C-alpha cells in the first residue's frame, strides 16, 4: 500500500472532499467568492460552490466540493499505540491478585459542571457497554464512582481518602474547551496535593478528546470514543501492576503552568 494517499471520491488520487461552513456575510456574489477564497486557502483545487443559502440577512451557508491538494503521509501519522496487552477480566483479576496482592482502587467522576455520566458509567458500572461488563464486575478492583458534577477539590480529597491507585475522569461537554480546562485543573490539583510517587494514575475519557494529548493535559492516559471497560482494565494492570517501573508520569511540571 502506498504510504502517500489522497482523499478518494470515485477515482484513486482524485483528492475529493466535501466542505460546509457559514460566513458572516449577506448572500451575494461576493459572499460566494469569499467562500471559494476560503476553499482555495484550505487547499481545494477546482472547488465547486454547489450550494449557497442565506441564513437571515447577515449570514450565508455554503457547501463546497473540490479536490484537496494536500497529501496524507501515512508514515507521519501519530497514533497512540496500544502500549498494553489486552486482558480478559480473569486475566486482570489474576494479575492483580498475584502481583499486587491487594485490590486495586479506582475512583471515577465527571468533574466540573459536566453531568454526563453515561460514559463513565459505561466504564465503571456492572452493566458496562458493548457487551462487556464494567469495572465493578472485576473482583480485584474496588470502584468508587462519585457520579456527576464533582468539584476538583472534592475529587482530590476523596482520592486521597480512598488511597486510589487510579482516578478516572469523564468530560463530555467541550464547549469553550471546558473539557481541556477541567482536565488541566484536575491534573494541577493532584500535583499540588500529592508528591510524584504518591499520585494516582490519572486517566481521562470522553468522546471529543485527542488520544495524543495526554502529556499536554498533564494526565497519564486519554481514552476516547468506543472505549470499553476491558481496555481500561488492561491499561491499569499494565501501568500499575505488570510494568516493572513505577507508573511513569509525564513531565507535568513543564506543561501546565
Amino acid at each position: 500500500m502506498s504510504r502517500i494517499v489522497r482523499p478518494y471520491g470515485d477515482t484513486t488520487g482524485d483528492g475529493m472532499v466535501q466542505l460546509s461552513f457559514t460566513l458572516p456575510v449577506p448572500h451575494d456574489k461576493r459572499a460566494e467568492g469569499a467562500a471559494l477564497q476560503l476553499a482555495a486557502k484550505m487547499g481545494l483545487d477546482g472547488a465547486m460552490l454547489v450550494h449557497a443559502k442565506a441564513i437571515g440577512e447577515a449570514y450565508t451557508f455554503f457547501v463546497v466540493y473540490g479536490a484537496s491538494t494536500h497529501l496524507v503521509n501515512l508514515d507521519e501519522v501519530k497514533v497512540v499505540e496500544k502500549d498494553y496487552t489486552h486482558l480478559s477480566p480473569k486475566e486482570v483479576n489474576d494479575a492483580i491478585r498475584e502481583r499486587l496482592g491487594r485490590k486495586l482502587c479506582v475512583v471515577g467522576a465527571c468533574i466540573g459542571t459536566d453531568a454526563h455520566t453515561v460514559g463513565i458509567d459505561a466504564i465503571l458500572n456492572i452493566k458496562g457497554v458493548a457487551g462487556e461488563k464494567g469495572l465493578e464486575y472485576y473482583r480485584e478492583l474496588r470502584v468508587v464512582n462519585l457520579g456527576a458534577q464533582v468539584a476538583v477539590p472534592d475529587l482530590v480529597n476523596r482520592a486521597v481518602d480512598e488511597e486510589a491507585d487510579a482516578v478516572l475522569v469523564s468530560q463530555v461537554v467541550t464547549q469553550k474547551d471546558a473539557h481541556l480546562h477541567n482536565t488541566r485543573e484536575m491534573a494541577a490539583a493532584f500535583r499540588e496535593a500529592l508528591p510524584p510517587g504518591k499520585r494516582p494514575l490519572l486517566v481521562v475519557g470522553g468522546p471529543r478528546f485527542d488520544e495524543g494529548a495526554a502529556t499536554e493535559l498533564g494526565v497519564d492516559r486519554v481514552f476516547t470514543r468506543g472505549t470499553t471497560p476491558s481496555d481500561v482494565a488492561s491499561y491499569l494492570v499494565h501501568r500499575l501492576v505488570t510494568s516493572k517501573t513505577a507508573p511513569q508520569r509525564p513531565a507535568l511540571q513543564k506543561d501546565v503552568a
Partner: protein
Amino acid sequence: MTAKPLLPLDPALVERARQLAARAAQPVVDLARSHTTVSVERATLRLAGLTGADPDGIPWVNRLADAVADQVGIEHGIALPVFHALKDFPDLTRLAHAAAAGGVTFERPDEPVAGHARMRARRAVGPGFTRIAAKRRERDALVSEIGDPPQRPWIYLIVATGDIYEDIPQAQAAAKAGADVIAVIRSTGQSLLDYVPEGATREGFAGTYATGENFRLMRAALDETSREVGRYIRLTNYASGLCMPEIAALAGMNRLDMMLNDCMYGILFRDINPIRTFVDQRFSRQVHARAGIIINTGEDNYLTTADAVEAAHTVTVSQLLNERFAHEAGLPDRLLGLGHAFEINPDLPESFRLELAHALLARQLFPDAPLKWMPPTKHMTGDVFRGNLLDGFFNLAGVMTGQSILLVGMMTEAVVTPWISDRDIALQNVRYVLNACAGLAEDFHPPADGFIAKRANEVLGEAVDLLGRIVDDGLLNAIADGTFGIMKRPADGGRGLDGVAKRADDYWNPATEILDQDAATPAHVHEEATR
C-alpha cells in the same frame, strides 16, 4: 385540539393508571405542602420586588434570606422576620444591604406586631402577583393581536451560545426561519448554583445563564420579531435546579411562555435532593399556573440513560405523575407540555413503528395536553448525514401522531451545541416534513389488532404494573431504586437538602398563602384536571 383516538385502549385501565398515579403522588404532595426551602423563601422575596446583587454577584435575596436563616431558620417562613425588620428600613434592598453587613437582628414577632409584618408582606408580594397577572394578560393580548402559529406542532428551537447578545440575533433569525418557540438553554453549571445570577450574561458553557435580565432582553427582542413574522414567538427557559421557584417567579414576571419544569429531572439528572426538588417543584408550578406558563416535563431524558423500548413504560408513568402533580398545583391540561422522545435505537427492526406506538399512546392518554415531542439524541452520532435523516423521521412521527410541540432535532446533536447552520438545516427539515406530509394522519390507521396497537397496550400495561409497585413501595423509594432513567437517587442524598426545612406549625408565607388559594379554586383548573 382534542385528538381523536386511534388506539383501542381500555378506558378502565387508563382510569386505573390515573388513580394509581394519584395515590403514588399523594405522599409526595403532602411532603411538599409540609416543607419549605431556601429557594421558595427567596422566590417570595423576589415576588416582593427585591432585586440586584452584591459586588460579588450574590443576589440580595440570597444575602437577606441567608441572614434570616442563620438567625431564626426558615421553618417558620422568612417573611415575618423580614417584613418585621423592614419597619426600620425604607425598602427591602436597604434591609438586605444592612443584613448582609451583619447589622440586622431578625426575630419572629408576636401578635399584634406580626399582623403588621404580615400586612407589609402581603402588600409587598401583591405587586409581584399583579405583575405576573399583567404579563399573562399582555401575552393573551399579543397572541390575539399577532396570532398563534398557523400549524401544529409548534416548532421549538434551542439557542445556546452562552452569550445573551449572540443568542438574541440567533433567536430572531430562527424565528424568521420558522421557529414558533425559542428556548435558551442554560449553562451547564447553573442548576447547581444556589442563587440566580443577575444581569445580562455573556459567559456560559453550552448554554446561557437564566437571569431576570436575560429573560427580559430576549422577550423584548422576540416581541419585536413576533410582530415582524406575524405570529407570537414563545420564549422558553428552565425552572429547574436549586433555584426552581425563583426562576419560576422571574419567568412569570418577565412573560416567559413555557418553562421546563419536571417533578424529577433535577433529582435524577442533577443529583438534587428529592425532597428539595418536590417542594420547589410544587411552588414553581403554582407560579406557572398563575402566569399561564406551559410547563415542559422531562421524560425524554430517561431514554438517554435507559433503553427507550425497555423503559417506555417509565415515560408513561412519569407523565401520569407529572400530570398529577401539575393538576394538584393548579395547572390545567392545556398548560401541560408532557415530554416524550424519539430515542429508540434506529437499528432495531420496526423502530419507527415502535416510535409511532409510543407517541400515539401519549397522545391518546393526554388528549388535551400540548405534548412536547423530543428528537433523537442518544443514537445520534458524528455522522451528520444520517443525523439529518433520523431527524426527518422524528419530524414525521410528530406529524403522524399529532404532537403539539416539536423540539427541532439537530444533525450535530453528537458533536456541538447547535451552529447557526445546523438550526437552518434543521428548520428546513421540519418545514419539508410538515408541508409535504401535512395531512398524512388521514391515511394513518393502525389496525386494532396490529403491531402498533399491541405495542401501545403492552406499554400501558407495564405502566400500570409499575404504578402499582410504586404505590406499594413509595415514590421516593422507587426513585432511590433507579426506576427512572436507571439513576438511583436516595431521598437523603443529593444537593440542596440543607436548604430544606419542615414547615413549623406557624409557617407563614405571603406567596404560598395566595398560591394555595389558587390551587383550591376550581376555576383555574381545567375540567379534565379533576377526573
